[in-house]
């Protein structure tokens, strides 16, 4: 059953090219990400669906091992990518080591520097940061009409989104300090009447580079014109209250919420058939909570997707879900 319909959202706002599905674990974020990617690809848009979850399940849903393989073509116009954080961290460490060796013409990394490089990589935040950075890469590089983020479960997703603003202010502060240092250099040079131009500050340049990238990605995440964020929920008490809480938190980070999608709706027609008491109770309970959801979210509900008769894996099932979400296309 399609209500205001997702299709209108996509038709009305063609600039919203960064699509995100959020919600608790196991409610169907990956399924909806894949189905939306499928729908858009069928409309002739070039789509990349990628996972920011270290335990990604895009490989499972597309029945194809894509982990750490970069953007992989699933069907015409549809690309999927699972980021291998570990691999990226290792490559990054190596890049830093090489840079030090090249800059100072060293044979070997000094011990205390090497142990710092290793300790930094063991930081718990390192994996997320690496994924974050790769997503920045993906977004900055461009080349697709749509980017679909297969997000991690709620709390984590919030952490991920807040990372952008934390980095933002961190980088602003140290860039400011660095620029101030630069001014002192210039003052000293003027007083001493140095003839030579000051050398470029390599650190400042590096900071400005990082700043540019982080700002760009956090701008995208919080820009209503470019981003559509959908919440996935089911007709159950706890899920509804968690979703309400999460929606309030997300609003704090200026994540532009486009609407809600209800998943796993048991077909109401079942009730008229000869079904066991157990199922009847489930359906009655569901009717109640669907009503609660309607009262709470009203027009923001964009689709109700029925519980499927089997697991959603493989393109056939993905197409079926896409048709439930977007109507026949």
């Amino acid at each position: 059953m399609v209500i205001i319909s997702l299709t209108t959202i996509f038709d009305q706002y063609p600039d919203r090219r960064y699509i995100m599905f959020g919600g608790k674990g196991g409610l169907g974020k990956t399924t909806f990400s894949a189905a939306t990617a499928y729908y858009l690809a069928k409309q002739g848009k070039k789509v990349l669906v990628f996972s920011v979850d270290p335990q990604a399940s895009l490989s499972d849903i597309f029945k194809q091992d894509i982990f750490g393989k970069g953007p992989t073509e699933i069907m015409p116009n549809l690309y999927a990518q699972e980021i291998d954080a570990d691999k990226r961290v290792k490559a990054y460490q190596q890049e830093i080591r090489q840079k030090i060796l090249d800059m100072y013409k060293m044979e070997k990394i000094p011990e205390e520097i090497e142990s710092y490089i290793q300790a930094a990589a063991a930081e718990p935040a390192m994996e997320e940061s690496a994924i974050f950075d790769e997503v920045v890469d993906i977004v900055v590089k461009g080349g697709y009409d749509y980017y679909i983020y297969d997000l991690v479960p709620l709390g984590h997703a919030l952490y991920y989104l807040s990372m952008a603003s934390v980095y933002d202010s961190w980088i602003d502060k140290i860039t400011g300090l660095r620029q101030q240092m630069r001014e002192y250099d210039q003052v000293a040079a003027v007083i001493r009447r140095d003839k030579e131009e000051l050398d470029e500050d390599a650190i400042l340049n590096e900071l400005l580079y990082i700043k540019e990238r982080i700002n760009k990605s956090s701008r995208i995440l919080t820009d209503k014109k470019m981003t559509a964020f959908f919440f996935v929920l089911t007709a159950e008490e706890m899920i509804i209250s968690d979703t309400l809480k999460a929606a309030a938190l997300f609003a704090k980070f200026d994540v532009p919420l486009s609407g809600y999608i209800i998943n796993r709706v048991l077909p109401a027609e079942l009730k008229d058939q000869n079904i066991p008491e157990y199922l009847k109770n489930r359906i009655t309970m569901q009717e109640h909570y669907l009503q609660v959801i309607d009262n709470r979210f009203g027009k923001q509900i964009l689709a109700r997707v029925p519980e499927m008769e089997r697991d959603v894996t493989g393109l056939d099932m993905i197409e079926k879900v896409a048709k439930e979400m977007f109507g026949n296309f």
Partner: protein
Amino acid sequence: MSKQKKGGLFQAIKEFVYGVAAHDSARFAMKSRASMEHLFILITMGDMLGVPILPPYYSLRLLPYVVPQISTWKRRMLREKDLTDALA
């Protein structure tokens, strides 16, 4: 020749004036600059001294540029000595 002499004299006066008036300011600016340098490394590389700093991923990017300063910086920050130094 006399021109050069004049230039030399001028140069000497210039340096004298600089020494009297500006040398201290220049030194002060450079000293402030050096303290800021240490502060900057502390903010970005504080992890090395056990000061947790956010976020390590981007700190690493800056590491190559501060490699030569690391040991003087550590010395300055850890000037106070105690027994645990023997373990390091």
